[in-house]
């Protein structure tokens, strides 16, 4: 197989701009994801969420831009940093907050926790907590779509740090060799946990500079610009759906908070956060929409709706009881049980 490596770093001609409706849909999504994630943060501080959790604050445009470009029967595979991706596909906010709080109403009835949010009915095929594992799993879903001729596409999100693990390499090679309908999206937020990605990576752009190793186009997109993300998503998903094989997209973005619950993010150079807050995807998008003539009231209406939704979801999740102990020996097997002996 010959390497044909084109380079492209921006959405180009032929990448359709989102319609006005799509834009408002995306704005709504951005705001909901943001408010819900902030709520999750508050619930931590109140110790209503235990364990760990990884917020997407600042990275919402990647989730929203791709979700807006997907067909309902397409599949999302994401990481432990998956609250936004899972909800962007339509998973219930109560189910998400309930899961974080370990309640029976949780998407996973409390069995999985924040790192494993899944809603198969919505095409949210799981959040995976071990770096890289979901990339070959997404390959398998794409293979299934190709085999069954359904024109479904598997979209797989992962971080910059994930580009250095073996599964990344194996998945991309096999996806290309089998010409599978998959889009791999690296959310480059500049850090693995606390270590800057540049300190542990042999190339500057951890995903894009490696695309050619899999015979793929080099694609970098501004991950804080939901329109740009949407356009790249349209194009790469469209290619996958049309049988033209996989893509690898590097979206440059930034997480506003620490890596996980416990992390105050002191390792960041001074001013870095502030510079990125200037480019907050919601701030940027709100300004753009206003500039395009969208009425302030329209946006405020969306924002108020979102806040109401978060309040309702929080109340519902809080009202839900802890999961019953009977769940412990359920659902190891397809028969619903956990028996390993007679």
């Amino acid at each position: 197989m010959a390497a044909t490596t084109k380079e492209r770093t921006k959405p180009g001609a032929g990448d359709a701009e989102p319609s006005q409706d799509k834009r408002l849909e995306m704005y709504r999504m951005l705001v909901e994801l943001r408010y819900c994630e902030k709520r999750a943060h508050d619930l931590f501080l109140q110790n209503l969420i235990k364990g760990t959790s990884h917020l997407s604050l600042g990275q919402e445009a990647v989730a929203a831009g791709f979700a807006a470009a997907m067909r309902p029967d397409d599949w999302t595979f994401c990481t432990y940093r998956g609250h936004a991706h899972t909800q962007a596909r339509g998973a219930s906010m109560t189910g998400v907050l309930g899961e974080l709080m370990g309640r029976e109403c949780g998407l996973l009835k409390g069995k999985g926790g924040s790192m494993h949010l899944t809603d198969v009915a919505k095409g949210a095929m799981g959040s995976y907590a071990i770096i890289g594992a979901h990339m070959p799993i997404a390959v398998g879903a794409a293979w299934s779509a190709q085999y069954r001729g359904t024109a479904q596409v598997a979209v797989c999100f992962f971080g910059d740090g994930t580009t250095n693990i073996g599964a990344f390499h194996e998945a991309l090679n096999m996806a290309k060799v089998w010409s599978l309908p998959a889009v791999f999206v690296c959310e480059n937020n500049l850090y693995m946990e606390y270590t800057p990605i540049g300190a542990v990576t042999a190339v500057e752009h951890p995903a894009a500079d490696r695309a050619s190793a899999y015979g793929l186009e080099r694609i970098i997109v501004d991950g804080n610009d939901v329109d740009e993300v949407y356009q790249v998503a349209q194009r790469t998903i469209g290619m996958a759906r049309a049988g033209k094989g996989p893509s690898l997209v590097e979206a440059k973005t930034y997480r506003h908070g620490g890596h996980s619950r416990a992390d105050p993010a002191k390792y960041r150079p001074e001013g870095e956060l502030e510079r990125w807050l200037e480019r907050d995807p919601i701030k940027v998008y709100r300004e753009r929409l206003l500039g395009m003539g969208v009425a302030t009231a329209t946006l405020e209406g969306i924002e108020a709706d979102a806040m109401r939704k978060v309040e309702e979801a929080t109340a519902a999740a809080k009202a839900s009881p802890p999961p019953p102990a009977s769940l412990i020996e359920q659902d190891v097997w397809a028969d619903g049980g956990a028996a390993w002996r007679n």
Partner: protein
Amino acid sequence: MAELTYREAVAAGIAQEMRRDERVVFLGEDVAAAGGVFKTTVGLLEEFGPKRVRDTPISEQAIIGATMGAAMTGLRPIAEIMFSDFFAVCWDLVANQIAKTRYMTAGQVTLPLVIRTANGGGVRFGAQHSQSVENWAMAIPGLKVVAPSTAADVKGLMAAAVRSDDPVIFFEHKGLFGTKGEVPDDEHVDELGAAKVLREGKDATIVALAMMVPRALEAAKILQAEHGISATVVDVRSLVPLDVQTILEAVRKTGRLFTVEENPRLCGWGAEIVSIVGEEAFYDLDGPMVRITTPHVPLPCADALEDATIPSVARIVETVRTSMG
């Protein structure tokens, strides 16, 4: 009934299921055009074509990941891991992803898949190509684990594994590929979780798996003929689910338990069975429970050394005799 080799029974079992169900697909390294390095899958590519029988890169994580992803989206894949030792390069996908995802998602995800692999020693391949790792799989909740000892069981358990809606790790034994046995020509579907009593005795129960089964049987004959010890021999066949009742019943009748394991000594399936018996049939025991295992060492390569390391008929006879005597 035709006489097939254990090797041929593998392809026969897979082919039976692929004919029945289009969702069954098969992937692995050198499995298609070449028919597998052990020639266990010869003819599948020819019959089912390259869409259903696929050669992969040397990327075990991608193979097993793809298997999982395909299973969760409507296919019923069978993957080959060429040597069971190589589970170590894709163990995350097997033990952390495949085994746990149904449970973690409260049943949202169903994973009807089979991973078949060549397990065990005796063929002078050295420590990285000869391990018996069925205990690795048994230790992980969420995996079903099968290890047939005859050609008929290969075909029947393969069919049962493919039809199971749960992930099944299917251990084929390298040392048995050349052995022959009667295999039903017609559709043959066995049952996961059923042990087989191959011989009934009254003095001792010998529980064995895979290549240790013929050795246990042979040892039982010698024990009877030369030492007047009458032994029940149980072929476990399936480690998960485990047919505890059959084993307990045998021990209750005989009062003594011996396990014969090819894996290194510590934390094998034998320890699990001994522990179950030591709790649930303690008062039926007439003497110590004894595990006959490979010593806790990597497997040496030279024929002289390998043969002296894996439990042999002579060692089984000797251990049972001394311990009963």
